[in-house]
């Protein structure tokens, strides 16, 4: 009788086990979903950065305004996560340049947040990545917060020395750069 009463009060079901498994499973699925979404998002944007870098480098080579070069490549969510940096590479036909004048423009386009962005609320009101979950070690995917790509384009590509003065200056500069670069390269062989 006692045993029967106990069975009625606490029926032998697996609801508790299901609840525990569901809690663990759904949490893992949610985490996986978040990670997958983030990875897919960043990978898509990685491809966009290389396209944007090509466009920006092309604009830099033509001495055009490249400030809006990323505008056509990334979704605009009201916060611009894309950044462009310009670098002039001293380059000669033999690689190294002696004399310092530019030979190529290097555009680097990055998308995402830098670790520094997490230290301020200027960009985002709060950073979810700084949330610390109980019993979980501090975990910030600092190496996947942003993606970047680069592309180069000939510097001053519109200047084909149509002016006689430009041609003379260009030839002299090229002679200095190439001879210097070649000597430097030869020196590095020994």
């Amino acid at each position, binding site marked *: 009788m006692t045993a029967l009463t106990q069975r009625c009060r606490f029926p032998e079901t697996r609801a508790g086990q299901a609840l525990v498994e569901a809690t663990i499973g759904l949490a893992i699925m949610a985490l996986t979903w978040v990670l997958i979404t983030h990875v897919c998002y960043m990978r898509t944007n990685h491809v966009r950065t*290389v396209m944007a*870098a090509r466009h920006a480098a092309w604009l830099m080579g033509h001495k055009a305004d490249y400030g809006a070069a990323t505008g056509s490549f990334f979704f605009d969510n009201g916060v611009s996560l894309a950044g462009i940096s310009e670098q002039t590479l001293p380059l000669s036909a033999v690689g190294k340049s002696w004399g310092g004048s530019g030979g190529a423009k290097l555009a680097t386009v990055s998308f995402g947040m830098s670790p520094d962005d997490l230290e301020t609320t200027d960009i985002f009101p709060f950073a979810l990545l700084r949330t610390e979950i109980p019993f979980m070690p501090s975990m910030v995917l600092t190496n996947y917060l942003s993606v970047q790509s680069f592309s180069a384009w000939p510097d001053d590509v519109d200047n084909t020395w149509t002016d006689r003065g430009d041609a003379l200056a260009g030839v002299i500069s090229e002679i200095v750069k190439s001879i210097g670069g070649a000597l430097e390269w030869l020196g590095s062989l020994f």
Partner: protein
Amino acid sequence: MLLSGTMMFLVVMTVVLNGDMNKAVYERIVAQNAVDSAAEAAALWEARGCNVIQHLNNIHYEGNKILFIAESASLVSCAASVFSVVAVNVAKPFAWTSAYAAAVAATFVTCTLCVPAPKIDKAQENFAKAINKFQEIASTVFPILAVGYANQLAIKSGGDNLLEVVPQYLASVLDAGGVSWGGAEDVLSNLGSLPAPLDSITLAAFPWTIIGDDTFFKLGVKPKEGEGLPWKTPEWWNTMANTAYEAGKAACSDGWEGAGVYQAAMGDGADPWGWTDKYYQGNPGYMTWMAGKVSQDEVAGLGALRWLRAKEGATFTDTNAMYSGEILNPDIFKVPAFIALASSQVEGTPVISYTESVDSKGKIIPVYLPFNYKKPTRGDEFSPLGIYH
């Protein structure tokens, strides 16, 4: 739990494959960026070479014009000196008159102006030689610069060494076609670097155009004999120049009181008088460039999946691959090597004898291959093969 685990596994695998596809697209874009920047750099330097040669043509033309006028004036003075010497001799009995003084002054002026005629002719010859030499050097050096800069730009844009890319690419193409590549890939892989001391050079861009287009390394310009002034002095002018100078020399150095001054100054005449100069003419052909990216490991290392602790005491580095049958080819589980092509050419006024519009510009054009049935001409917008990038 089992169901959710299975679903998660499938989702993760789908994402991994998506990542691989993403990586492949990325590598393909980088390869195209590399070859496009290489083609643009090559066209830029060929255009600059054309403009330098055109500037030299123009300088040659303008220099010849100035020297022709100067030499003609000098020779006219030679002819005039004959008359002024006659006038001096006629007026000699009236040496106290101003007419005699004027004749003597005129003779001094004309004889002095006559002296440099052969020197001007010689200077013109040296001037033309120097200009032509510079043009010859430019027509050789600028294509080399084009190749050098194209290679550098391809490297800076992320292009890989083609000596590694091409064997990998051929291997993947042959694999896709069911042809066993076997040891041939290893042989070609050994070609992955140039012999020392050139092994520090990375060949990231290769000009296809050198195959089947012998004008590529000559910039497409050739010396051409000029016609008409100021490139070529007329035959009658050459004869008149000789006659005028010899007559002037005879008159100035032997026919009057001041002749002694000119006996040493007036040397032999030019041999021959006048000139027939060459200028450079032509335009570069199109260039087709190749750059690429080497194959990459795929995102999750699917080609090297291993059992974790498949047997007692095994470590991760033990040989416990999930599958080791004959079908397994690790190369299949890789993001393949990519090759990209781009063509460029120089547009604007071709290099001609003389023009005020020195306007050569480089331009990327639809891809042309050396074995196309029709070479592109100026103004062509579409490739015969319809390849775009």
